[in-house]
């Protein structure tokens, strides 16, 4: 019984952790090109989910709704880039932190008034009935999260490696100034990264909504954890976020089982501070040599 419970806890937690990882991946995309992240990413997750819900309610089938949602997410990502990030980056100031928070606040309030303050179910053709694998109950919905997360991360990584635009992306990530000299527009690449990041956020919203419901506050708890995952794994760690995300998810589950549910987050937080103190650039991040 005990081993089975541990297994159940670890698996459920790790699957939730994949959502953290996906949002964390969105942070990485923009950090790579611009060294900035959108502090209002949670609101992108939320409004994209609401928009997708509207599409569904308008009668779009699931397969048409998903690309529609992703497109909307990308669009909103571009809005954040244009309104909140570009100016600050040009001025080399840290204003993007505040501006992205402020834009998120605006999105939040708009969503409250457009879609209502209530949490709502998100219809999906995927069944929520549990299936039994090796003594552990997993729902198809949870498995769909895993599939979706790996699919989009795989696609984006392929895109970065195989296409010309993707290579430009990699070039700007590696060395912005050198890429500029080679005629690659870093502004456009940053736009691209924010668009992709918005899509990733939208997908996270679409995947997680059937499990957690859609509502204005749906992402506020998710986003802090995603941020932790991104930083602990390292903001340039690539697939490292997946491991850290699953680990953190499982740890939370186990902690709430063994320590009591109120202390659910405590071990994760303590580990996080320690991990940062020992490896400031993240567990999977590249260590940098201080040069002067």
């Amino acid at each position, binding site marked *: 019984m005990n081993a089975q419970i541990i297994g159940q806890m670890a698996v459920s*937690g790790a699957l939730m952790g994949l959502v953290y990882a996906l949002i964390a991946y969105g942070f990485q995309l923009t950090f790579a090109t611009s060294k900035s992240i959108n502090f209002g990413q949670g609101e992108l997750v939320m409004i994209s989910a609401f928009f997708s819900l509207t599409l569904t309610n308008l009668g779009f089938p699931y397969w048409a709704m998903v690309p529609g949602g992703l497109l909307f997410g990308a669009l909103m990502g571009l809005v954040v880039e244009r309104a909140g990030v570009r100016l600050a980056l040009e001025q080399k100031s840290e204003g993007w932190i505040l501006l992205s928070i402020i834009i998120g606040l605006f999105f939040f309030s708009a969503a409250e008034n457009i879609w209502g303050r*209530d949490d709502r179910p998100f219809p999906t053709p995927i069944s929520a009935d549990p299936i039994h694998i090796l003594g552990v*109950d997993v729902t198809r919905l949870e498995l769909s999260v895993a599939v979706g997360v790996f699919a989009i991360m795989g696609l984006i990584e392929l895109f970065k490696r195989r296409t010309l635009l993707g290579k430009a992306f990699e070039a700007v990530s590696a060395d912005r100034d050198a890429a500029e000299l080679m005629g690659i527009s870093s502004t456009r690449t940053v736009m691209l990264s924010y668009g992709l990041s918005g899509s990733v956020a939208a997908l996270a919203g679409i995947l997680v909504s059937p499990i957690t419901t859609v509502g204005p506050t749906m992402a506020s708890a998710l986003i802090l954890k995603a941020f932790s995952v991104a930083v602990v794994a390292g903001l340039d760690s690539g697939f490292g976020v997946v491991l850290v995300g699953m680990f953190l998810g499982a740890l939370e589950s186990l902690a709430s089982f063994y320590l009591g*549910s109120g202390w659910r987050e405590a071990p994760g937080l303590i580990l996080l501070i320690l991990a940062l103190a020992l490896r400031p650039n993240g567990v999977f991040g590249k260590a940098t040599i201080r040069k002067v």
Partner: protein
Amino acid sequence: MFRQTLCGLLLVAASGAQAADTVKIALTGPFSGGSAPMGTSARDGSKLAIAEINAAGGIQVGNKKMKIEIIERDDEAKNERGALIAQELAAMSDLSGVIGTVNTGVCLAGDKHLQEKGITKIICPAAGSASMTQWSKAGVKDNSIFRFAAYDGIQAAMVVEEAINRKFTKVAVVFDSTNYGVSGRDDMLEQIKKQGNKLTVVAQEKFNIGDKDMTAQLLRAKSAGAEAILIWAIGPELAAVSNGEAKIGMKAPLIGGWTLSMSNYIDNAGKNGNGTLMPQTFIEEAITPKAKSFIDGYHKAYKVDRIPSAVAAAQGYDALYILAAAVKQAGSTDTKKIKEALEDLKEPVKGVIATWSHPYTKWDPADVTSHEAFRREQVVMGMVKDGRVVFGNDADRARLIKSATSVTPAKTGKTKKK
């Protein structure tokens, strides 16, 4: 900086200087954030009543009809905002009364400012026991704070009673980490003791606002052999509990506070929510013409096809009519006179929940029910069935129809104590 301060001061000064040809009523509550469905429903229920009263020309105050003017304040479910709003309202010299507040913490932080100035407030729909017991603990002689909600004491008693009636012996107590959840836990534990320890609490589980994965809590309850889950929480996390049960193949029904009737539970739990039981003061079912006109009116005015929190809306609606009746009886917009009228309402008030006859009596520090409108009789057990709340048993339904059409028995002072 100066300009802003000055503006603020001018505003405060100006608001005191306006001519008094309206009845000023403040509606407060969380209109944004997680508790907003309850806050906006209660507010909109009250506004519906105000629209009806104003359409009929207003309230008869003395020899003239006065319309109701609304002052709205969003407390964001934050204690600090609640305290500031209460201070602001307390400083208004011509305010007749306040209706609102969802969060018990906001009551605890803010109501003292109103009470100090003797401003009449009807708490609605915050149900946490502490918002009224703080006054009996402090032993105040004269209290201007009333409540119009089935307070947790009643609800917890009903929940425990229901579990015993259904022959459960082992239960898990599950609650969220807010003030509401924790005080609900205390009430339930106290009631279990009071009702003869017929239930064994095999697990006490807590979760945070925003938690969507309840596997850990449920597995512990399951392995301890819980047959039912007594639950106290706000909001959509409740649905996560039902869905989590389905996932791990657990069949213990949920019995808990009235928030289980909110759409964000029912919709999100879907078929997993069937069989969930909760005390209700109002069920969105047109059982009487009055209820039908209220429900239709709400749907039409706010362009929804279901009230986010029907209980909160109905309570907001009735609370306003009761306050209006007190204004009429007092023949004055003076909040202190209104308070006195409230403590001794002569005429029964026809509400959507019931017909209220003498809902409040003179404040007695030894008995908070003197300022509580709801009695056990006005509360029924509701049950979730296929996405709606229906009556848990038909006898209740018949009783409610009767109570809404006839007059509720007048209060006889210290009949019930928590």
